[in-house]
C-alpha cells in the first residue's frame, strides 16, 4: 500500500503562487483561505544573501498530532496512500487540530469544519498529480509513493540534499524540500 509524499525542489521554485491559485480553483477553497502557501526564507545581510522559497502545505505526517487530538475521529489517516484527511460531516469545528498542527496547515472552513490540503486525493485516484504539482510552471514539485524505492520521489531524495519542516516537532512530515 502506497504512502504518498511530496518532494519540492526549492532551487527551481520561484514562489509565483501558481500552486496556491490552482488549489483554490481545483478545490473551491473559500475566498480568504488557502490550503497551500509560499514561504521565503532569507539568510545573511546585504549583499551576502541566500534565499529559500518553499511551497508549503499539510505535511501528511507519519506521526500526525492533528489526528491524535481529534475528539470525533473526523481527522484520520486514510488507508489509501496513508494521507491525513478530514471527514467534514464528523467534524465539530472544535479547532483542536488547528491548534495541534505545528505548520499552521489547517483552518476552519466557513461551512464549519476543519479544512486543509488533501493531496488532491480525488485527482490522485484518477491517476493525476495533485493540482499544485500539475500546474507548477517550474515543475519543481514531485508527488509519489515514498514506500516505493523506485519512485521518482525516492530517487530525488537519494540523490539530493533535503530537509523537512520542523523535524524537531517529531511529526515525521512527508513533504520534503530539496536544497
Amino acid at each position, binding site marked *: 500500500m502506497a504512502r504518498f509524499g511530496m518532494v519540492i525542489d526549492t532551487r527551481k521554485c520561484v514562489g*509565483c503562487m501558481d500552486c496556491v491559485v490552482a488549489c*483554490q*480553483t481545483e478545490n473551491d477553497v473559500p475566498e480568504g483561505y488557502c490550503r497551500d502557501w509560499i514561504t521565503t526564507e532569507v539568510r545573511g545581510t*546585504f549583499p551576502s544573501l541566500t*534565499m529559500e522559497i518553499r511551497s508549503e502545505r499539510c505535511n501528511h505526517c507519519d506521526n500526525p498530532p492533528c489526528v491524535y487530538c481529534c475528539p470525533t475521529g473526523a481527522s484520520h489517516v486514510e488507508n489509501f496512500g496513508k494521507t491525513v484527511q478530514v471527514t467534514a460531516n464528523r467534524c465539530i469545528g472544535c479547532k483542536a487540530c488547528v491548534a495541534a498542527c505545528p505548520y499552521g496547515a489547517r483552518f476552519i472552513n466557513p461551512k464549519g469544519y476543519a479544512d486543509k490540503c488533501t493531496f488532491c486525493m480525488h485527482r490522485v485516484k484518477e491517476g493525476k498529480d495533485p493540482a499544485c504539482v500539475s500546474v507548477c510552471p517550474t515543475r519543481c514539485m514531485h508527488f509519489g509513493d515514498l514506500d516505493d524505492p523506485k519512485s521518482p520521489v525516492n530517487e530525488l531524495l537519494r540523490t539530493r540534499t533535503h530537509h523537512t519542516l520542523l523535524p524537531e516537532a517529531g511529526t515525521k512530515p512527508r513533504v520534503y524540500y530539496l536544497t
Partner: protein
Amino acid sequence: MDITRISRRRFLKITAGTFGAAAAGVQWHGLAPFAIAADAPAAKGVVEIPTFCEMCFWRCGGIAHIRDGKLWKFEGNPLDPQSRGRLCPRGTGAVGAHTDPDRLRKPLVRVGDRGKEQWKAVTWDEAFTYIADKMKAIKAQHGAESIAMFNHGVGVRFIQHVLKSYGCTNFAGPSFAQCRGPRDVGFTLTFGSGLGSPEPTDIRNTDCLVLVGSHLGENMHNSQVQEFAEAIERRVPIIVVDPRFSVAASKAKYWLPVKPGTDIALLLAWMNLLVTEGRYDKAFVEKHGLGFDKFAAEIKQYSVEWAAQETGVDASLIRAAALEFAARRPATIVHPGRRVNWYGDDTQRSRAIALLNALMGNWGRKGGLFIQTGMKVEAYPLPKYPKSDKPLADNPDGTKYPFADEAVTTGIREATLTGKPYPIKGWFVYSTNLIQALPNEAETLKAIQNLDLLVVVDTIPSEIAGYADVVLPEVTFLERYDELLAGWGRTGWLALRQPVINAPADQKPGWWMAQQLAAKLGIPESMPFKDIEEYLAYRVEKSGYSFADLKKKGVILGPKKPITVEEGLELSFDTPSGKVEFWSDQLAKKGFDPVPKYKNHGTAPAGHFRLITGRAPVHTFSRTQTNPLLAGMMRENEVWVNAATAGSLGLKNGQFVKLKNQDGVVSNRIRVKATQRIRPDTVYMVYGFGHTNKMLKRAYQKGASAAQLNTKYETDPLMGGTSIHSNFVTFVKEA
C-alpha cells in the same frame, strides 16, 4: 447539453449558409455570440474548451473546464508552445476575471464632470449613437485623424480596424514607448530586427544566462520561466544584475547589485574587457560585423575598475561574471529584457546589450538567440483603408523620434495638449489604463480636457474609465472570440480564442462592438461578415487548416523550420549595411552616439531614495488587482527598504508610510517591507496598485501607485520611450 457540440453545429450552419457568400454590408442580426445560449440549461458534468489566455501578453493556450455550466478552472493546453500545458498564476486565476464582482456590466455615459464618475447606464444602441455622432462631428471639423486610439492586447483588432476604415491613423500602445520599444529599437539598430514577443531566447539550450534587471520568476512570462527553471535544474550559471536581490538573483551564481542607472557602465566595461582579452567570437565579428575596430577603440576608455566605481560592484565580481559568460559562448544569452524603459537612454543600453550578444556570436545560435519562424495565415478580404495626407500626430514624419518604428503614446498625448501638428479631439482607449501606463498623470488629465470624446473599452473600471465620456463594458477573453493568434517562435503556431462561458451581464465582445460602430458610422462594408466565426473560419480554412479541428484543439503548430545556424539557417541582417553594426552610421548621421555612452543618472539627494519598480507574478499591470483570486494572493504592494536603512529611519516591517517624490507628490499609504534584499540607496515597489477608481471596490486605495510618483521622466530621444526609474522619494510617516 454539450457545449462543444453546439458550437460545432453552429459552425456547420454557418459554413453551409453563409460561408463564402459574405456580401458586403451584411448586418449582424443578434445571433448569440456565445458558446452557450443564455437560457440554455446548464450542462451537467465537466466540459473542456480550449482558448488562449489574455491575462497578460504571453497568450498561452489553455483549457477551460466548465463544471455543471459554471467556470471551474483554467488549465494549460499541452499542445501550446507558450504554456506547454501549464499556465502561470494569472492564467490559472483567470477564473477570477470572469467572476469579479467589480466588472463593468453595462454601457455607461458620463453625466457629471470628467473624472467625477457620475454615470447613466444606457443601451448599446444609445452608446454607439452617442459615439458615432461625436466622431462624425470631429471628422467634419478636424478630420478622422483627430481621433486617436490607445490599445493593448489582441482584442482591439476589429475596433481598430473600423477606426482605420473611418480614416483614423493614430494608434499607439504603451507596449512600445512604455515597455519593450527601446529594446526592439536597440536590437534593430544593431542586428536589423527587433525581438518581438515571445523573445527568441533559447534558454532551453543555453549554457549561461545573464539577466540585466530582468526578474524572471517575478515576471511570469510563462514558457520563458519554464525554461529558466530548466536552466536552474541543469545547473547553468546565472548572472543577475539588479539593485535588488530578486528571485532570479537568489538562483544566480553571481549577483551584481549595481547602483540603479549604472547598467551601461557595466556593459561597456564588460565589452572592453572581453574585446581587450580576445574573449569574443572573432569569426562571427569578422564575417558579420561592421565598424568593429572603431567600436573597440571607442570602448577602450571603460575599465573594469571605472565600472566598479560607477556601479558600486567589486571589480573582481564584474570580471568573474564576464569570464563566466564569455567562456560559454555562443550558447550564452545576455537577456534583452522586456519592460526596459528605465532612465531615458534605454535604447542605447539595449544596444549595448545587443552588442554584447554580438560579441558572444550567439545570434541565430543554439543556446543563444534563435531566429523566430511563423506560419502563413490567409487574410480575410477587407476593404482598403482610406489614404490620409496628414502626418502621424505622435512623431510627424519621424522628426521627433527618428528611430521610433511604432507610434509613441506620449507623442499623441502631447499632440492632444498642444494641438500640433493638428488637434486631437477624440481618444479611444482599449484595455489599457492610461492613468497608470503613461508617465506623469497630470499631463494625461490635462490632455483629456481638450477632448470632445473619450471612449474607454475595458472589462473593469480602470482609472482612465473614470474620465471617459462613454464606457463600453467588454466581455473577458473567456467569453469571446477574438482575432486569430498567429504566433512566431521556435515554430509558428495558430491559436484560437473562443468563448468558454457566458458573460454575466450585458457585456459584449470587441468584434461585435466594432460591427455596431461601423453601422452607425455608415461604413458597414468594413465588417463584411455575418459574425466573427465566419471570419475566423474563412481565414483558417483558406490557410489549409480545419476550423473545426482548431476549435477542438485550440492550437495548431506550424511546420518546423531551421531557427539556428546549427539547424542549417543562413544568417542575414536587415541593417542598412547588411551587417551587425558595431559602429552605427545610422545613429551618427542623426547626431546620436554611434557606440553607446554612459551617462550618470545622479544620486538620490540626502534623505531620498531612488524608486525602482517591477512586476509581481500574480498581477498584470494595473488590471488584475480586483480579480478576487489574484487579490487573494497579493492584495496590496509594499515598499522595499533596506533593513538597516529602515532601522535608522525608525521604520518597522508592515508599518504604513506614504512616499513623497521630488516634486512633492505624495502616494497613497503603503506598507514597509524592511529587507536585506535591496541596496540601501534604493526603494522598490511592484507597480499597478494604489487604485483611485472607487468602482474597483476590492482594489481601491490598496497600496501605492508607482505611476503616480512618476512625475519626473526622461524621454528617449531615439524612439520616445519614457523612463520610470527617474524619481527619488522620501518617507512620510503615517500619523
